[in-house]
């Protein structure tokens, strides 16, 4: 029995020693990998510092180049350009420089990008399986105004990955302005609010050639396309879409209706106030409040009786909103409330105070 116990003890010890040995081997391997990676990273960083100096000369030369001059690419740079890591670095530097410049000098940078055939590197990224590389390639081609790749970029505006899709949409707009919006015809995925803001910013200062596309997009089955089109039509003051926008008030989507209301507020038609009031009773409280608020801007004395009827609503928020809009439309202004017998009662005392403060501000 004692001999058996000893054998077990010996086996345990052997297993234990082997386990420690394996653990140490794994630990050393891990340490080696981390050390190797750190050395590699440091070398790359050191290289980048050196590259930065030599590149700065070429890039700045290219920026101030006149039509008669040609760029001189040194043998050192030509040799370095054979390395893909250096080419990636040059693209990043060119894009960084481009963001700091405007005018004719940006064309020189694009020219340098093409001379060094870096557009091919960016284009190759579009075929990467990794989404972030794909998105980077799209961004590079867009910033560098590479219209010859627009067909591939356009295809990616409907990519299942949101970030790839967003980047492609932004690039197409950078390349073609309003004409690039044709991706809305086939947009199968929702356009996020953030992306809508991004696209609106990119289109700032541009004017559409016509409103034909808008008429189609306002009927899109993709709600985000309708919402974006409404925001865009409002921001560029597209007057001839009024009837199409009024139809949007019948949508089941609250956000579409609210954006349609914003358009009508900014670009009202002949009987806009009457039209929006006619939608009042078929909608929820949020939209009702928005309608009451819009009447402040586009209402007239014709809407006073409607607003007066709201003072008897069960909901205090509706009452207050009605009273506020009335204070702008009523011939007596904010004093109309005092003429009412209930002016001293709650909640009217507070509502009246709020209106007075708002008007004073």
């Amino acid at each position, binding site marked *: 029995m004692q001999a058996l116990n000893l054998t077990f003890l010996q086996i345990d010890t052997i297993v234990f020693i082997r386990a420690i040995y394996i653990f140490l081997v794994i630990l050393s391997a891990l340490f080696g990998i981390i050390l190797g990676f750190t050395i590699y990273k440091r070398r790359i960083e050191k290289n980048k510092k050196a590259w*930065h*100096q030599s*590149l*700065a*000369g070429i*890039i*700045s*030369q290219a*920026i*101030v180049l006149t039509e008669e001059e040609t760029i001189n690419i040194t043998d050192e740079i030509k040799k370095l350009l054979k390395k893909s890591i250096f080419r990636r670095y040059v693209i990043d*530097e060119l894009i*960084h*420089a481009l*963001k*700091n*410049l*405007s*005018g*004719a*000098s940006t064309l020189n940078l694009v020219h340098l990008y093409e001379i060094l055939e870096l557009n091919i590197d960016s284009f190759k990224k579009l075929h990467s399986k990794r989404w972030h590389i794909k998105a980077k390639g799209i961004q590079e081609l867009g910033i560098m105004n590479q219209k010859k790749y627009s067909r591939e970029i356009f295809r990616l505006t409907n990519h299942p990955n949101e970030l790839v899709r967003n980047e492609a949409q932004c690039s197409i707009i950078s390349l073609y302005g309003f004409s690039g919006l044709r991706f809305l015809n086939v947009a199968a995925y929702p356009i996020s609010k953030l992306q809508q803001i991004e696209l609106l910013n990119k289109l700032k200062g541009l004017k559409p050639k016509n409103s034909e596309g808008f008429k189609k997009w306002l009927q899109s089955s993709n709600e985000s396309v309708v919402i974006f089109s409404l925001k865009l039509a409002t921001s560029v003051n597209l007057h001839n879409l009024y009837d199409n926008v009024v139809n949007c008030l019948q949508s089941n989507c609250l956000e579409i209706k609210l954006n349609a209301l914003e358009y009508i507020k900014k670009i009202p038609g002949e009987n806009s106030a009457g039209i929006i009031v006619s939608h009042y009773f078929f909608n929820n409280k949020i939209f009702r409040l928005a309608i009451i608020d819009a009447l402040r801007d586009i209402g007239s004395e014709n809407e006073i009786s409607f607003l007066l009827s709201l003072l008897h609503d069960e909901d205090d928020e509706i009452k207050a909103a009605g009273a506020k809009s009335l204070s702008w439309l009523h011939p007596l202004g904010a004093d109309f409330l005092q003429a009412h017998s209930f002016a001293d009662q709650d909640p009217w005392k507070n509502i009246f105070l709020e209106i007075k403060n708002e008007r004073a501000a």
Partner: protein
Amino acid sequence: MTILVAEDEIIILKTIELRLKKDGHSVILTQDGREALKQIEDSEVDLIITDIMMPFASGLEIIEAVKRKPGKKIPVIVLSAMGQENVVLEAFQLGADDYITKPFSPNELSLRVKRFAPVSANAFT
């Protein structure tokens, strides 16, 4: 003119250097604010082009130092990505003579620099 350029981005710095040299100016380059302040004390400069965000001392500190310096009035052009109204106003209140926001055109900068050239020099260009 002798122009001091204070800018921490080397590509922008070299671009400005090349552009101004093409116009016949001599250029002193610095990549940080402290070095720029030293150059202002030690060298004879006719114009300063400075970024705002720089290591060790900001462009605003440079304007203050230049405007405090007795003797010849040295014009300062600010070249910065910071276009916020409060920053622009502060720069002008401190005595900046011009403010260019990035992204900028080197050709436009060249023309703006010409406005500060002495009248006699202008007559020959």
